[in-house]
């Protein structure tokens, strides 16, 4: 635990100066706040931009930041230094993961609050986002573990993020895409956000979400078994 805490503190200092990662946490909250306040079309559903960009946020920020952090530490040899200091892979991933979740949640909290969400609806939104972030964090960690360096991480990260974030968007206008999109957790979160707290969750949705979570976890475990953190 002491080790995870040390990693978390390191990450807090580091990200302040790491623009590439920092921008991932700030970009979507900022776009959401600007768009919600600037563009207001009549009859637009409530929190239209917030819901749309929240899904993109949870499909992008945790994946790119987690994989960027881990792959950079591999490339620069800092991860090796940690492993030689007897930091266990679990402590390391816990430290970085908790940090990442906290940063994303802070962004989600701010953007939803500023967009005027509150009460029960707000808590529901935050709970959904937390679960979505967690799935994405595991996916990002899997990519970071698999990739030998930052370049390799980017080439895995970008397609994953594009599929997860753009499918729900395109699915709104294209039925064929929508049929595929529904099998991805991001689309399911989009539906859940749109249906709101009083909407019913279908069994199909639940199964799809559970499958997504299990697959992502499986990919992470496979990646970890194959590469580990301290092997070349």
């Amino acid at each position, binding site marked *: 635990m*002491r080790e995870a805490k040390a990693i978390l503190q*390191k990450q807090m*200092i*580091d990200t302040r*100066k*790491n623009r590439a990662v920092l921008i991932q946490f700030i970009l979507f909250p900022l776009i959401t706040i600007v768009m919600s306040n600037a563009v207001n079309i009549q009859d637009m559903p409530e929190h239209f931009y917030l819901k749309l960009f929240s899904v993109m946020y949870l499909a992008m920020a945790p994946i790119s930041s987690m994989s960027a952090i881990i792959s950079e530490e591999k490339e620069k040899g800092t991860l*090796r230094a940690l492993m*030689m*200091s*007897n930091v266990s892979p679990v402590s390391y991933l816990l430290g970085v993961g908790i940090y990442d979740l906290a940063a994303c949640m802070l962004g989600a909290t701010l953007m939803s609050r500023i967009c005027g969400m509150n009460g029960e609806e707000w808590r529901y939104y935050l709970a959904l986002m937390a679960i979505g972030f967690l799935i994405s964090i595991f996916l990002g960690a899997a990519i970071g573990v698999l990739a030998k360096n930052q370049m390799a991480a980017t080439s895995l990260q970008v397609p994953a993020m594009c599929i997860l974030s753009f499918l729900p968007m395109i699915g709104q206008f294209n039925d064929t895409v929508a049929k595929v999109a529904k099998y991805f957790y991001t689309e399911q979160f989009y539906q859940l956000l749109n249906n709101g707290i009083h909407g019913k969750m279908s069994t199909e949705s639940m199964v799809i979400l559970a499958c997504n979570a299990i697959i992502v976890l499986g990919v992470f475990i496979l990646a970890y078994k194959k590469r580990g953190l301290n092997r070349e």
Partner: protein
Amino acid sequence: MIEVTNLSKSFGTKKVLDGISMTVRDGEIFGLLGPSGAGKTTLIRVLTGQLKFESGEASVMGADVRKLSGEDKKQFGIMMDDLGLYERLTAYQNLKVFTDIYGVSVDAIGKVLAEVKLDQDAKKEVSKFSKGMKERLRLARALVTHPKVLFLDEPTSGLDPQTAKEIHEIIRNRKEAGCIIFLTTHNMTEAEKLCDHLVLLNEGKIVESGSPRELCLRYDHQKRIEITTTDGEKEQLPFAGGAVERIEQVLKEGRLLTIHSQEPNLETVFMELTGRKLEA
């Protein structure tokens, strides 16, 4: 104590360490001297549990290096090029990550930074450090957690003589404090001045070992007298047999320009043993 018995390690079909046996005693500075590619870094990796090996035994302070526990590893301080620094963090913050992990008091950070003469730069971002400063920070990181065994892979390579001298002083102080020091180098002057015990490594095999003095004495037959004549000719004369007569002759002819005696040093010893030079 570090004990290695008949250790071999290959990468693929290439044998990188071949039947290594040696003992490092407590409280000594042990030097592994060898040219590039000899297997020095590989041996440190093996001893610190970073690399598996095929055969033989190795233990550090009684612990088998194949099954080092977390507590064993926390006794080590390791300085190697591929253990990176956090470039966006300051020198102080870099060390703090490790004192936090080890549960060591932060007071140690200031002391160690002063020891490696980085106290003025404690709050500077590491990305703005020079090569020598980074090298000193790597050393500081190895020292800050109060290790009992220090593994230093070429601790002074590429540094100016003054900085190298300062690092030698720090290493000696740690020895006085009871630390075991295992270092590698391909600088024979460093090996000669700093180490209590030396092992000469070439292509994965130990070719000689002993204190620097012992080694030079053992190769006493390399003692020579070199004379230069007025026509610019150089002659190497062995100490035994014929040197006196030859010098007398040249002197009588009035052709003697210079006369020097040559003692064996680690470089010439290495040369005799392997037919190659230590430094390319």
